[in-house]
């Protein structure tokens, strides 16, 4: 193999299905020996939230946001046919039957494969998310760091 190829994904969505697509592509790209970056912004940040409640000092709006957004990848809803939370239960059941990997394990696998998970600090501030609430071993950056990776990227996606 010659030069190291790069894949970058902007994960904007906080939907279970779209996040799953992003992480499947990321894991696939890592298997292709690409250097892979997922840049999580806006609702996509929720994929990086720890599932347990973390006590950090927040103002009223930040608390509200924290309560209304899914705490971690497993609690996300579907982009279509969510049916007030029944949709994710159904799809997870179907996934089990088809041996598809659930989203939390896909994220774990991505970390094992050295996929760089980046949280956008500007939108973390907007949504009132603190570093303590997000997974360990992730990076924090802004648009310039993303573009630095993306301009050398062979695959760049916005999901």
């Amino acid at each position, binding site marked *: *193999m010659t030069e190291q190829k790069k894949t970058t994904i902007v994960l904007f969505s906080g939907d279970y299905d779209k996040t799953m697509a992003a992480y*499947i592509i990321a*894991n*696939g790209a*890592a*298997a*292709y*020996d690409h250097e892979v970056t997922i840049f999580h912004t806006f609702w996509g940040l929720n994929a990086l939230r720890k599932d347990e409640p973390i006590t950090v000092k927040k103002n009223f709006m930040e608390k509200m946001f924290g309560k209304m957004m899914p705490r971690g990848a497993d609690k996300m809803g579907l982009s279509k046919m969510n049916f007030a939370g029944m949709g994710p239960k159904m799809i997870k059941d179907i996934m089990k039957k*088809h*041996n*598809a*990997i659930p989203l939390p394990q896909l994220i774990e*696998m991505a970390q094992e*494969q050295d996929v760089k998970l980046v949280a956008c600090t500007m939108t973390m501030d907007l949504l009132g998310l603190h570093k303590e609430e997000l997974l360990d071993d992730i990076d924090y950056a802004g648009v310039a760091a993303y573009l630095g990776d993306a301009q050398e990227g062979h695959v760049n996606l916005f999901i």
Partner: protein
Amino acid sequence: MQAVQVLDAKGLACPMPIVKTKKAMKELASGEVLEVHTTDQGAKADLSAWAKSGGHELMKVEEENGVLKFWLKKA
């Protein structure tokens, strides 16, 4: 064409066959052959594209009772 290792990826869904194949190939020396078994029909296109990109040789593909068998020679 003696495989030094057989990877059983039967029943696994995308992207697992390719992720596991990559891991298994890493352990092999250049010129050694890995045999991969999958039931994911997408693996046919996946593994041939993956092998091509990495410079590995897909020597043979067989299908037997819904199980796809691949022989990959490491570059």
